């Protein structure tokens, strides 16, 4: 192996510095994964928020993107766990553009997503797959990535109740809901959606955590600073679940 082609440690540090932190107006990669619990609709909501943000960002052909349809693919288990899309609850600009695919099996859902990515008349494809089906392995995810990048249609794959297994998604989020900011006129009522988002793998950005808020015009993000690790003095660190006696 030719070691000269590999980056030096110093270069890696520079590269890390060059990779900026994720921001809401950062360009959206063409294949993202969002891991959410099945009992919340945060995945689809955040997916639409991301998509709207990205579609707004593509100002050049905004007019053509405006009327393109959106494909929402769900497999049967995702429908059973999380329900179907409800038109009146969709973001205003997307209501009339939604096409819903209820696939029986994860294989069918993957097929539908891939066909959707191949279609030049779709603005974005949102997939919702429950669990870790055998069909959705690294090969399938790589296939989706390649198709998305070949045809330039973004894919947001929502994984309900799933382990973060191997995947070729360019950005992987873990989302749960977060307490919303109270509305102005009724502080006792739930406000606009907000999510606790953890970006745990991204090609262009270092990982981080944010509180995302779905503002009317844009997606607002507020960085969550991790509390510094408590100082345990002389105690052995990093023992994890193991017994201290084993060290």
């Amino acid at each position: 192996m030719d070691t000269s082609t590999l980056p030096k440690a110093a270069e890696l540090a520079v590269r890390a510095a060059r990779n900026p932190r994720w921001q809401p107006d950062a360009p959206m990669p063409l294949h993202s994964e969002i891991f959410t619990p099945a009992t919340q609709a945060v995945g689809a909501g955040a997916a639409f928020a991301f998509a709207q943000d990205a579609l707004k960002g593509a100002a050049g052909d905004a007019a053509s993107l405006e009327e393109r349809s959106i494909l929402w693919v769900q497999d049967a288990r995702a429908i059973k766990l999380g329900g179907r899309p409800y038109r009146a609850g969709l973001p205003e600009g997307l209501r009339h553009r939604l096409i819903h695919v209820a696939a029986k099996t994860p294989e069918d859902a993957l097929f539908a997503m891939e066909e959707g990515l191949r279609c030049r008349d779709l603005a974005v494809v949102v997939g919702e797959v429950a669990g870790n089906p055998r069909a959705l392995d690294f090969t399938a995810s790589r296939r989706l990535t390649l198709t998305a990048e070949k045809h330039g249609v973004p894919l947001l794959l929502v994984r309900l109740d799933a382990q973060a297994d191997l995947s070729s998604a360019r950005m992987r989020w873990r989302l749960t809901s977060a307490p919303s900011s109270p509305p102005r006129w009724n502080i006792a009522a739930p406000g606009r959606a907000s999510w606790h988002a953890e970006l745990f793998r991204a090609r262009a950005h270092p990982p981080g955590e944010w509180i995302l808020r779905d503002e009317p015009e844009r997606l607002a993000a507020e960085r969550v600073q991790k509390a510094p690790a408590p100082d345990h003095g002389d105690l052995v660190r990093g023992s994890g679940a193991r017994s201290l006696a084993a060290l």
Partner: protein
Amino acid sequence: MAIWCADLALDRWRHSEGCQRGEGTDAAPLALITETAHGPRIDAVNQAARAHGIARAMMLADARTLCPTIEVRPSDPAGDLAFLERLAIWAQRWGPWSAIDPSDGLLVDVTAVAHLFGGERRMLADVEARCAARGLHIRTAIGPTAGAAWALAHYAGQAAILDPEDDVSARLADLPVAALRLDNDVLLVLKRLGLKRLGDLAGIEEGRDRKGHNDIRGRDAIHRRFRNRKSPAANPLVRMDQLLGRVPEPLLPVVPITAPMVQRRLVEPIRHRQLLDTVVADLAEDMARTLEARGEGARRLQLGMWRVDGEVLTRDLEMAAATRDPSHICRLFADRLDDIDAGFGIEMLRLRASWSQPLALDQSDLEAAAEQHGTSLAACMDRLTTRLGRDAVQRPVPRASHIPERAQSWQPPLEPEPAEQHQLAFHTRPLKLLDRPERISVLYAAPEGYPRRFSWRGQVCEVARVEGPERIAPEWWREKGSTRLRDYYRIEDEAGRRYWIYRNGLPTDGRGGMPDWYLQGLFA
């Protein structure tokens, strides 16, 4: 214009023998025969045999008694017909289309053509000269109808021309009734009736007998006599009308069909299989282009390989369905080329589609185009619907109803949205709606009525914020009277999970016991 090849079979035989008329083998009496159930029968005789009194349709045994030295050769009616077909196509040099007149004649349409050859007479001279150059003994005639031309060619002597301005019936009156192209038994009947000339028949038709007396029963009588004969060849009246142009006579024109053919001459003779495969692949591509231009696909292909030493190797291929896929053709030929002996090398290859069928043009690179530019929305929906079913690919559309789950219906994705009254968005609606509202068990209810703590799917939610109730009454005009109203609450628990729950009924509405709570929707 009618061309009658009076001696077609013998002319062909002479051509194959390479002898002139009346010379060499032809100088001796000769007959062409066919074997029949009753022995050999004579089909054609040459001049020398005719001088001995031998005629066609005679049995060979009878002919031998007249002329014991007669030579016989087998006749070739199929070859004659094939030759006649080729001759008909060749004869299109004098007119836009031509038809075969079995068994030994041609009909060429020369309407408004003669001036190109300097008049009708010179055109006939040209026909005769060219046919004589080919060794064909012919008689020609031009007439206003096909029947008239035929009659003149056969019975009126050399190069007869009948102008349309002439009195056709008068000009043809002297010809025998055989000039009507009738079957032999009909001719026999007419002969027995005493109708020997066309003039006799025409006279009866016009209601005159030979002495000029009016007799309008004549045509009726003949009509009755032949009333069962529908075929023109069996009905002299129909033939007569065709001859005079009173009824149309459809003819079947000969259309030349050239088999698609591609060939490659090679600079250097090839001796190796690999090169041969390359050339065959090139030929297949050429053939595919040729066939595509004609809108056809090949059913049978013939690959001819000319070797340096003059040997020709052929390989035939027949397909189950018309095709012009080059890779398919190559794959099929690859199996047939294993036993080729190239000798000193193959210098020319020719691929010929001897049988081709219409094959509609198709866009063969549909997949490739889709790969490159993406599919259209309609194509995408087609693919999804084909694999997943019509019910799987749908678009939500609003419906006029208060009940949340009824307020949306589904329709095929590309249909236009139905007209709707604008819905007032007073209340926020969830992003997702469960297919069936799920019952939740309230663990602690607030005095205001909504639950403070409830469990759903095994997890406990502490309600932190709430908005409601939004009361939705049942649609009394379509539901039973016992249906209870719903009080919807929008709630958020301490972890920020936002749900849409409702209480089905009021404790005091008298439509059942204590109302149950359900969770119906999930907010983003």
